[in-house]
């Protein structure tokens, strides 16, 4: 089943690329495959035994036996949720790309499907080299998607993205090679804990670039601005979670001692990123800028949660990974929908779009208030748990988080007001329509997931880590 989740989109990608289909059938096939992924995931969710926990639906085939490298995939409780996030957001992104009618749709859809398979692969791979392969495989379609289908500044954006991520990848590869060779296996379920600080830092650097963490986010504003909205949605919603997953699954779980030793500096970087991102989001001049920097802030928060290495922080960060993935994907898609109507994302030229466009106003406002973590929303539940966990590692960190809560209210309300309220902006013409049914069909399911999680956030927090071990005993979780 896990293998099917990886292979289905890859196979669909191959079909879309190879067969001479017209754009409509290529798009339909891609969407069908993406929806089938959601269906398979629901099966996985229903059949995963949360009471037992641990690695399930695993599938192992030897690859290089002398190095103990194997094709080994499987899911843990918390990775079920991340896989779910991936397939849901990818389905929405593919549907939106199809509806928006991207040029050279066959190539585009093929890349999106490939991306889908690769991201799922990252979340289920149980072998370090396999993990690395998928981690890199994510980048290939992204380079092309940003570089070819992006906005006017796509060249520079792609270049920066490549340089940053390549640098990270090289460090991680070095760490993997040294780590695997020294432990005589690359199997994540078998490989022992290590106390090597250098290997740890190699992993952390790679994930910190991908997340990104302050100050390694140089690629972020441009990449999020220049890519098409659905790609930005995937980048910030899902791809960044691969990094958070890496922090949890590898950096914290396999390097308990270094993770403990480096806790303070990592928490500090994450907290700085949280405040810094929030402040920049507050002053960003355009829609995408606000969402991009808020994403930086949120990744800082999630990283803080992971590195608390206590129950509250870990449960909260898994929940918040899903929340933020859904929120920022929805926001980027909505930004794209607004930009489609106004041809600009500049906040100064927007405004007054609520009048006569109730669907847009309702969806944007609801997503916005979840993004600012209004109490009773799932984002509130996630942030609350993370900060409660962080508080136990030092109240100062939690105070920084509390300041960020206030800043989040400021930047989200600024965004919402700038689009919806006040006088009608110069770029908003009366002919700009309300959200079309297809656009609602893309955003409303994402929003519905968020609302469902708001009703029952414990769905994730209770079903992420094995019950009989505290989540804080990370190593025991993965045995």
């Amino acid at each position, binding site marked *: 089943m896990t293998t099917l989740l990886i292979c289905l989109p890859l196979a669909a990608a191959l079909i879309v690329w190879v067969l001479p289909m017209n754009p409509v059938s290529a798009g339909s096939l891609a969407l069908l495959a993406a929806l089938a992924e959601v269906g398979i995931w629901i099966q996985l969710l229903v059949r995963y035994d949360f009471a037992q926990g641990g690695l399930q639906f695993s599938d192992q085939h030897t690859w290089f036996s002398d190095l103990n490298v194997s094709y080994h995939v499987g899911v843990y409780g918390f990775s079920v949720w991340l896989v779910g996030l991936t397939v849901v957001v990818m389905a929405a992104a593919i549907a939106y790309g199809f509806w928006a009618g991207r040029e050279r749709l066959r*190539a585009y859809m093929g890349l999106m499907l490939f991306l889908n398979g690769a991201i799922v692969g990252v979340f289920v791979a149980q072998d370090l080299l396999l993990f690395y392969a998928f981690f*890199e495989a994510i*980048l*290939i379609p992204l380079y*092309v998607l940003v570089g*070819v289908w992006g906005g006017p500044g796509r060249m*520079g954006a*792609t*270049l920066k993205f*490549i*340089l940053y991520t390549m640098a990270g990848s*090289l460090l991680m*590869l*070095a760490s993997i*090679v040294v780590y695997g060779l020294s432990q005589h296996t690359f199997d994540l379920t078998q490989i022992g804990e290590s106390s090597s600080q250098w290997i740890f830092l190699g992993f952390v650097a790679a994930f910190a670039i991908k997340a990104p963490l302050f100050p390694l*986010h*140089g*690629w972020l*504003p*441009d990449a999020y601005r220049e890519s098409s909205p659905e790609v930005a949605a995937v980048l910030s919603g899902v791809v960044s979670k691969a990094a958070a997953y890496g922090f949890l699954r590898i950096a914290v779980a396999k390097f308990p001692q270094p993770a403990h030793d480096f806790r303070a500096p990592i928490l500090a970087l994450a907290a700085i990123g949280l405040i*810094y991102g929030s*402040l*920049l989001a507050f*002053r960003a001049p355009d829609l995408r800028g606000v969402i991009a920097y808020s994403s930086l802030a949120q990744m800082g928060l999630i990283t803080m949660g992971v590195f608390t290495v*206590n*129950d509250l922080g870990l*449960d*909260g960060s898994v929940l918040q990974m899903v929340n933020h993935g859904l929120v920022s994907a929805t926001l980027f898609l909505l930004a794209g929908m607004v930009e489609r109507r106004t041809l600009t994302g500049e906040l100064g030229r927007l405004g*007054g779009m609520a009048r006569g466009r109730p669907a847009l106003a*309702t969806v944007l*406002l609801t997503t916005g*208030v979840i993004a600012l973590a*209004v*109490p*009773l929303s799932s984002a509130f539940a996630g942030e*609350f748990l993370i900060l*409660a966990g962080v*508080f*136990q590692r030092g*109240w100062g960190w*939690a*105070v920084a988080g*509390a*300041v960020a*809560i206030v*800043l989040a*209210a*400021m930047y989200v*309300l*600024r965004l919402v*007001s700038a689009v*919806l309220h*006040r*006088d009608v902006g110069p770029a908003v013409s009366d002919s700009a329509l309300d959200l079309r049914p297809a656009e609602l069909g893309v955003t409303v399911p994402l929003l519905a997931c968020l609302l469902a999680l708001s009703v*029952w*956030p*414990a769905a994730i*927090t*209770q079903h992420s880590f094995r019950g009989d071990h*505290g989540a804080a005993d990370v190593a025991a979780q993965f045995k």
Partner: protein
Amino acid sequence: MVWGAWICLLSPLVAACAITLGGTRQSRRAAGYLATTSCFVAFVGAVASFIGLLGRQGGDRQIISTAWTWITGGSYQSGLQILIDPLSVFMMLVVSGVGALIVWYSIGYMDGDDEERRYFAYMALFVFSMLLLVQAGNLLLLLAGWGMVGLSSYLLIGYWHERPSAIAAAKKAFVMNAIGDATMALAFFLLIQKGNSLEFGILGGQFSSTVANLVALGLLGGAVAKSAQIPLHTWLPDAMEGPTPVSALIHAATMVTAGVYLIVRTHAIFEQAPRIADLAAGLGALTLLVAGLIALVQVDIKRVIAYSTMSQIGYMFVGAGVGSYPNAMFHLMTHAFFKALLFMAAGIVIHALLNEQDIRKMGGLRQFAPKTYWAFLFGSLALVGIFPFAGFFSKDSILAAAMAHGGWYGYLLWAAGLIGTLLTGLYTFRLFFIVWWGEPSAFVREHFHALRRDVVGVSMASTVGVLAVLSLIGGWIQFSPWWHPVETWLQTVAEPIVSPESWQEWLSIALSLLLGLSGIAVAWSIYGAKRLAVPRIAWAQRTLEHKFWFDEAYDALFYEPAVFLANLLRRGVEEPIITDSGRDLGDDTRDLGGLVARAQTGLVRTYVLAIASSVAVLAVVFVIVK
């Protein structure tokens, strides 16, 4: 009974969702009726819970009903649970009762607004949120309700979203309240660390005095922000940008009094932190004076009433701070009646004058709207606390409690409360005489149009009537020197820690009546009979008109520095160092080789090649290192 409480909580939520999803398929009027009905259903549910509790003995009057586990974090968990006890039922009755009346009134007031449905969806959402706040069975859920009322308040203040001033006021209210939410959250983190639980019961546990003080301080931060007490009060006057029924419901009768409810609900921790409780009372006393002074010079009819709200909540804070919980709650209830009445009557005036709120343009309205005149008079007398109106019964016992608190601090609070009574008489009747007495102004003659006897008129007039009756008789349920059912009812939840002597009661009653009447007399001689001139002291006038410069100070202290810092980071760090360094690097690389520059051709093999070559480089590096 448990079902009654759940129905009470959920019926407004159902209505809010139905109106939102129904969209234009339903008529505007239908949305109004739906919201009103849901609030009346909630009231019925509250009454059912009340009757259910009445049938039980004192000690059994506490039922927790858990729907499911809402959130977990390791061994910590909080359920989606409601608490039915005398205090929550008391609040449920007030919130759903007054809420239903005001939503009903809105059918008339909002008639003809082209986004009426949105209004009623927000109102229903607010009533749900407020009920969640008062019914919450644990602190986390209380915080959830706390945030949700803040959200609905934001939505309703900014309801007329084309007005920049309304949007700015809405954002200000939300951000100010977010500060309070944040301090509460910090207090909760501390509780989780110390006790791994957010049940109400944990507050009674033994904490070191530092912990108790910090937790109480965090809670007080939330209470002060929500209840617009100094220093987090500046959002409330601006919140009058919202429609008048919103001001009546949210910014007078229910939400802004939530801070008082919070202190009473969590009194166990305040009793462990007496200094923080004193601080609460002190802030209340300060607020009641400052707000009373500012109200003297306001010229907007709603803002005068808004400042009087701040001032009255100040009294409640004094009551809750000194530990006279039942009296604070009692004043909360009577205040809900008479303040809602004042806002609604003012709403009729504003409606009749085509949305004019400037009292300088009003005058002599008595002959145009005699019934509203009487309603407004009832409300004003109740606000000043004149026998036999509602405010008389509730305010004086708070003063007596402050006196019984003892020490110089108790007497200070008492004196502040008495001076506040004088101010209340002054500003309330200044407003009253300016608006209703004298010769009708040209503006009034030209623009006044009376309510008709249709749905619009009836919905507005009947609500005002009901509230006028409540303002007259609502206070009689408790008269501290002789009978106190409110105190008995709340005894198991919030037993008062001060018990005034009977002479303290009577002295407070006599003095506050006297001062209230003198305030009215002075107002009458200046604005009614026009025998005295308004004293003009330039610096005082300026200070009051600038509302003691709080807004200016906060702008200079917090907002401007935040903007400055953000701009500094953007121009000084983000753009030159972080974003552009990548660009330069990129440019250099592009100059160096064509490989990366051709990245956008999308040739997969380019990337494979790049990755492979980097692997090769790395392998070499490792060989050399070894």
